[in-house]
Every structure is written in C-alpha cells, then in structure tokens.
C-alpha cells in the first residue's frame, strides 16, 4: 500500500495552501488528490478579479490566484495525483481512491486533511413548482459552461438568489450578450457582497428584487417563462403579486453546501449548522488525525481566508505527524464555544488553551443583519472580547482573534460564549 505522512483530499485553494504550509512546517511526505485534471478547484472558473487583496496585497483573478499556489506547490515538489477521485476515508486513515490510470487503490496516511470544498444547492433542494425543462442551471454550472467550456447557456435570463456567484454571473452573461432581466432574492437583503451589487448589477441596470421568489417554471423542452412572486415576512409567496417573465434560462444561486460525504464515511462528527465537521483549535475533527479546512469546513466568502485557514490546518497536521505517539494526553482544559444572540456558529467550536498557538482566529457568521453592534466573547462571566461593528450581515463572515492569555486559567469544563450585543 502507498504510504504518506499527510494525504490531502482536494487540490483547490484549501488543499494547496494546506499542502504548502504542511511542507514548510517540515513534513516531507505529502500527497494531494484532485478529482479534476487540473489543480486550483473552483478558482479556475472564477475568472473575475478581486482575489488576493489580503494574501498578496493585489487584485488577482481566480486563475491567477490559483497559479500562485500551484507555483508554490511546484517549487516544493509536492506530489499530486490528478483526475483521481477519493472514494473513502476510513477512521483509521486509509484513503481509497480511483483513477483511470491506476484503477482503485489505497493509501495509508498518518494524517488526512479534508479539503473537498462545497457544491451548490440544486433545484431539487428548492421545491419549485412547475415543469422540468432544460435551461435551469446553478450559477456555478453556468459559470463553468461560459468560462471553461466556452458555451453560452441562454439568452434571456432570470437569476434566483443573490449570492456572489449569481451576481457575478449576471454581469458575465450580460457581457457575453445575454439579457439578464432581474435577480430575485427571497430574503429582504442580498446574500452577496455589497461591492458585487454595485459592479455586477447597478453597473448594468439589472434590477435586484428583494423578498421575491420563483413560484413557477413553464416550458416543455426548454424554459419558456418563469413566474416570480413577492414573499411576506414568513417568506411565503403573497397571492396576487405574481409576475410572469418570458425567458429561456433560470440560474439558481441559492446557497452552497459543504461536500462531506467522505467525512461521514470517516465517522467525522458534523455540525448541523455549517454542515461541515466540528473542529478544535487545530482544525482537527472528532476523528484523531483527520483535519478539515476551507469550504468543506464552512462556506467562505473570500478565498484569502480559505488560504489562511487551510495553512493553519496544514501546520497543525504537520505538528500532529511530528508529535507521533507523544501527543497524548491532551484536552483536559478544553472549552466549548457556545453561541447565541444572533451568532449562528463559530469555527472552531472547541478550544484547548494549552494546545492553541499564541493567537487563534475564531470565524463566525450571524443569522440576520445587525447595525451598530458589538461582537462579544465571554469566558464565564467575564467579557474578554468586545468589538464594535458598523454592520454585520449573514453574507459576510466575521473574525475575532483570541489570545491564549485570555483563555488560560479558566475552570475545566467551562465554556466560551460568543454573541452579538447592542452595547
């Protein structure tokens, strides 16, 4: 059986950054497994710019950002197998994969980093009534058709969902000669970044219809029209507000789901909120030696933070491998991170102060829009973090940096509490 210190499942932004960091932390034997024939993952089809402001202090397109990390992996001669799909990860860290060249084969690992990314919620997840004609695509699928394969998926387009990919595709399809009639969003606010509303919709006079959803799709072979309706506070369509749009294409940009089939097979405990693994301060899952990072852990808005998070996972996996048998005992001082008051989740969700670095980035999302508020962290009764925010919104991930000194000396079994406060 093949054997590596660290096997990384996925060669996108998370997998590449984890590989580079693990190598730099002293692990020589690393293998990246990638399903596609090229490294880079979703960045390859994200040809727009705006990536890398944080990591590289310049605005790069997706393929350029990917190329930087691919170069780093090449420079370090990190081994990779492309067009190779992982079929199973066992709790004992045996990875089963398949490729056209090698058939089915197994790899023994001392640590595994899950970096499979996420996928789009499809039409089936939405319960839209109506026919089942061609012409209904997820936004990312349309993005791949246009940018990678060179096809235009339709000419008269309506987009449901104002996530960033939907907004980006509204602009991209417009530039390629399609007519985007509108973007409908179920919620009373957009799920995308404000800058994308400006540069993808406003620049091209594409209307954004908040509190609207699709209630019907018409067409036998191809989409002929869709019907939009306004929704009330309960998010249910309001009768009488229906409006019919003649079109040949409906794009769906209605959320992303971490792709965790392999994690489940490995008995990794998942969060019902993020649908990604529950991890500790080292981004290690509930299974010893299995780490997770990037969009498989929780869906990110910005690749820069994926790279940062994945580098952390890579370093920690390297430390884990190097510690070998000496890493036990551990975790008697583990603190559970609880959330309330508008905070939906944090990553990590448990922290052992004795195992953490000097600083730890806690990433979180809120469930609704808050203005002029504070993000607070309590350790027992004591407030240890109190950060003012002009606006926090569900579409924008928040970060809080914790210092080890803030967490030391807490009673075993106590917890941290993260919430949004008015003052």
């Amino acid at each position: 059986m093949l054997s590596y210190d660290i096997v990384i499942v996925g060669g996108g932004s998370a997998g590449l950054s984890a590989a580079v960091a693990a190598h730099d932390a002293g692990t020589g034997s690393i293998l990246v497994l990638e399903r596609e024939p090229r490294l880079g993952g979703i960045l390859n089809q994200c040809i727009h710019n705006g990536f890398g402001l944080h990591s590289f202090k310049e605005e790069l397109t997706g393929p350029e950002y990917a190329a930087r990390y691919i170069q780093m992996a090449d420079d370090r001669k990190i081994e990779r197998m492309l067009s190779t799909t992982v079929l199973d990860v066992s709790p004992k860290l045996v990875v089963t994969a398949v490729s056209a060249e090698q058939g089915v084969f197994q790899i023994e690992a001392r640590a595994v980093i899950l970096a499979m990314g996420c996928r789009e919620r499809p039409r089936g997840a939405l319960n839209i009534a109506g026919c089942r004609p061609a012409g209904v695509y997820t936004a990312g699928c349309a993005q791949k058709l246009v940018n990678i394969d060179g096809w235009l998926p339709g000419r008269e387009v309506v987009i449901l969902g104002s996530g960033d990919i939907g907004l980006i595709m509204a602009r991209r399809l417009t530039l390629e000669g399609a007519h985007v009639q509108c973007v409908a969003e179920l919620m009373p606010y957009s799920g995308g970044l404000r800058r994308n509303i400006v540069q993808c919709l406003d620049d091209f006079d594409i209307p954004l219809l908040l509190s609207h959803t699709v209630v019907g799709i018409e067409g036998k072979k191809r989409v002929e029209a869709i019907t939009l309706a306004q929704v009330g506070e309960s998010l249910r369509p309001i009768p009488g507000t229906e409006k019919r749009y003649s079109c040949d294409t409906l794009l769906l940009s209605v959320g992303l789901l971490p792709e965790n089939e392999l994690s489940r097979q490995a008995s990794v405990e998942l969060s019902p909120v993020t649908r990604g693994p529950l991890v500790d301060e080292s981004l290690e899952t509930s299974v010893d030696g299995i780490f997770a990072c990037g969009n498989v852990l929780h869906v990110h808005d910005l690749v820069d933070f994926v790279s940062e998070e994945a580098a952390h996972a890579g370093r920690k996996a390297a430390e884990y491998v190097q510690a070998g048998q000496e890493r036990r005992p551990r975790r008697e001082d583990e603190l559970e991170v609880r959330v309330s008051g508008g905070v939906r989740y944090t990553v990590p969700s448990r922290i052992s102060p004795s195992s953490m670095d000097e600083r730890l980035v806690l990433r979180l999302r809120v469930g609704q829009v808050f203005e002029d508020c504070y993000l607070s962290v309590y350790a027992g009764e004591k407030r240890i973090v109190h950060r003012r925010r002009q606006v926090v919104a569900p579409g924008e991930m928040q970060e809080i940096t914790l210092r080890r000194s803030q967490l030391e000396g807490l009673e075993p079994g106590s917890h941290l509490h993260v919430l949004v406060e008015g003052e």
Partner: protein
Amino acid sequence: MDVMELICIRCPKGCLLRVELEARGEEPRVLSVSGNSCPRGDEYARKEICDPTRAVTSSVPVRGCALERMVSVKTERDVPKGLVLDVVNALAGIELKAPVRIGDVVLANVCDTGVNVVATKDCLA
C-alpha cells in the same frame, strides 16, 4: 452642495461612502469623502464621480491545448466604465494558440485606451 452615497468596490468590505459634491452637473467637484475605512475609499469616490473606471475580465478560445478550450483574460489596468462592453466586443473573434502564459498580451491597446488585455491562465501546448 450635494451629498451622494456610494458603496466602495475596492475591497470586499464594501464601505458606505458619503461624498459631498459641489454642483452635480457636468463638472462635479468632490469636496469631501467620509465613511471610508482606508485611503482607497477616498480615492475610489473621487474617481467614481469624475472618471469612473472598471477592470474587465473575460475568456477567449485557445487552440492546441489538450486540457483547455478557453483562456481567461483581463485588462491590465482599469478602463473607462463606459467602454466595458466595447472591450468585451473587441475580444470577439480572437482565438489564441497554445502555449499561452499568464501575462501574455492577448490584445494590445484595447479600444485605444492604452491598456492591454492579458492572459490570466497558463495553457500549455
């Protein structure tokens, strides 16, 4: 004096900018910018009002590459906002031949803007 609100597009933060203007007419003059959390916001607001520009990205077909059918491209710098569609139209009909390297000029001085369109992806032959 007029007041305008803009959302900064220079980074994902998307600061809400408040711009005070003298005469919104043909030659607007920016008096002050507030709400920005970095100097880029100030710069963006002044530019957006007097001379709005955008970077343009697209993709063009490539021949002779086993892996890729399309090469992604971008304008090396921003071009005037009013020329965005012209830039994309100018790319119609262009077909590249592998190998293509990141930074290779795909179309020089697009629409007489003085800006080159360059490849953003490596495509090996």
